[in-house]
């Protein structure tokens, strides 16, 4: 692929690059007067007539290609760009091979992204996080794990004339069905935003199997991203650890910024819990963010949530927090609840 090439009817209009992509080369392209994003996959390669390799190797490679096509087409079928609520998902509009190489096409989108979401006000932040979570819910509702949720895969944008910034979720090529991830050697994921069970899976920990990699993997990353969007940085963890998940795996919980409200600190603690089953679902997350106040970054330190407190945002009949118990030390005991129990689906 190079500037000026026409591939599958798409004319390449920018110099191809691998910037931001680990296993692809991409460029912008045009077809019938419309602009597109054209992605060239580095694998698999479809054997061509007369190309090298034995008959056995040809059969193995064709089988890999068949599975690759099936995976992409099934996700395209499940996630259609015109589906209700899919407006903030950047979905494929075309998928094909030209010669030996596979390509995927999405609409050309403005790739500019607000680099400092933490500078937004609480209501703006709330809308931003809720649009991100709504996109994620579309995936989770059909049991798809994004698998590589991180700031680089989210575009924070404000449409002309719009009051709020929204989050566009991109790059589903590492997605997998909940509980059915790729093999340990092959699974994608980010070393910083990866969940504890993802890291143990990659490390070959036999106690973690494919069934343990569920949509809760995305919820851990969402917890980290929420903290980053609200404060400008990840939750704190000891410098001995290579990542938040390494710290959590060593039974050292992450420390949320204490300028966040107590319920938000509790929500982030729950999202970054070591056990996948202890993390809120994306529906829980959306409920928790109904009140934009939850996204406030205060000037002063806020009380820490009580350990093992159950926190629910905006309960109708109770104050958000109560005063510390008389004579008690430390933060006040939270009486607000996330209420994870009743509508949580059991995860195997």
């Amino acid at each position, binding site marked *: 692929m*190079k500037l000026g090439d026409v591939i599958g009817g798409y004319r390449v209009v920018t110099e191809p*690059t*691998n*910037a*931001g*992509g*680990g*296993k692809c*080369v991409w460029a912008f392209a045009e077809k019938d007067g419309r602009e597109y994003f054209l992605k060239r996959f*580095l*694998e*698999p*390669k479809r*054997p*061509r007539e007369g*190309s*090298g*390799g*034995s008959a056995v*190797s040809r059969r*193995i*490679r064709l*089988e*890999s290609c068949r599975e690759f096509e099936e995976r992409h087409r099934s996700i395209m079928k499940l996630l259609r760009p015109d589906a209700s609520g899919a407006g903030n998902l950047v979905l494929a509009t075309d998928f094909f091979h030209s*010669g*030996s*190489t596979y390509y995927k096409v999405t609409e050309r989108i403005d790739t500019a992204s607000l680099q400092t979401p933490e500078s937004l006000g609480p209501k703006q932040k709330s809308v931003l996080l809720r649009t991100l979570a709504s996109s994620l819910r579309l995936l989770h509702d059909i049991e798809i794990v994004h698998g590589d949720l991180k700031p680089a895969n989210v575009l924070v944008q404000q449409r002309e004339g719009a009051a709020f910034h929204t989050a566009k979720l991109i790059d589903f090529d590492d997605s997998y069905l909940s509980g059915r991830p790729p093999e340990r*050697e*092959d699974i*994608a994921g980010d*070393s*910083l935003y*990866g969940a504890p069970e993802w*890291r143990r899976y*990659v*490390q*070959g920990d036999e106690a973690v199997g494919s069934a343990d990699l569920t949509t809760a993997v995305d919820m851990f990353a969402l917890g980290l991203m929420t903290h980053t969007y609200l404060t400008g940085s*990840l939750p704190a963890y*000891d*410098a*001995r*650890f*290579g*990542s938040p*998940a*390494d*710290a959590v*795996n*060593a039974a050292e919980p992450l420390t949320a910024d204490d300028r966040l409200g107590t319920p938000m600190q509790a929500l982030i603690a729950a999202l970054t819990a070591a056990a996948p089953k202890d993390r809120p679902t994306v529906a829980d997350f959306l409920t928790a963010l109904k009140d934009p106040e939850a996204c406030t970054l205060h000037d002063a330190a806020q009380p820490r949530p009580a350990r093992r407190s159950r926190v629910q945002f905006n309960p109708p009949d109770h104050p958000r927090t109560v005063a510390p118990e008389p004579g008690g030390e430390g933060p006040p005991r939270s009486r607000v609840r996330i209420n994870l129990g009743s509508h949580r689906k059991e995860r195997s």
Partner: protein
Amino acid sequence: MTTELEKYHGNLQYAVDIVMCIDATGSMNPVLDIVKNSSLQFHQRLGEVMARKSKEISQLRLKVIAFRDFGDDPSDAIEQTDFLRLPQQVGEFEKFVRGLRATGGGDIPESGLEALALAINAPWETGLDRRRHVIVMFTDAPAHPLGTVGASAQTYPRDIPRSMDDLFEQWGYARSQTAVMEQSAKRLVLFAPEEEPWKEAIGEEWDLTLHFPSRAGEGLEEFEMDEIIETIANSL
């Protein structure tokens, strides 16, 4: 790349191995210094990019294979280092790279495929938790077919494939039984002309390969180390 801080032993450990195959024939004269300088700065730039992403490589090793033409002078057709661990062996790495001279080459095609075959068969890291194995080819010329020009010379590598088909099988593909490199770890980055074997036989047919064309016979005008760094940094 690790700091003085004592790290938690359970951290996910990443190993990155890179083999740079560098065409050191006469036509590379205008650009060899650029390639050399970029190579020398490579580990520092990679470290900076990774630090910006709050990520860390646990072990970084580089190996250089300089090649010319077995058909012109078999005695200096291949010069190579072992895998050198950086930053610990940076002195050895720099001494070798600084010593490279663009000379010889004879006819236009060079012995780039022999260098590539040696790279594929290098002793890649098999330990730590995750690995990235990258071969980078810098050349401004097409390549002689394997096992032909200069193949009877004493210095010609003995244990490399003698045909493109066999080299393809060694490079491999998902579920290959003959691949010598780890499928999920490997990448091949070509800074090479749109000539064979780089353009079609490898650039189109081999998986996990990125081809950034240079103009044949004119030397690599310039290249960006960024492509190589992106290949590594985005996949960890």
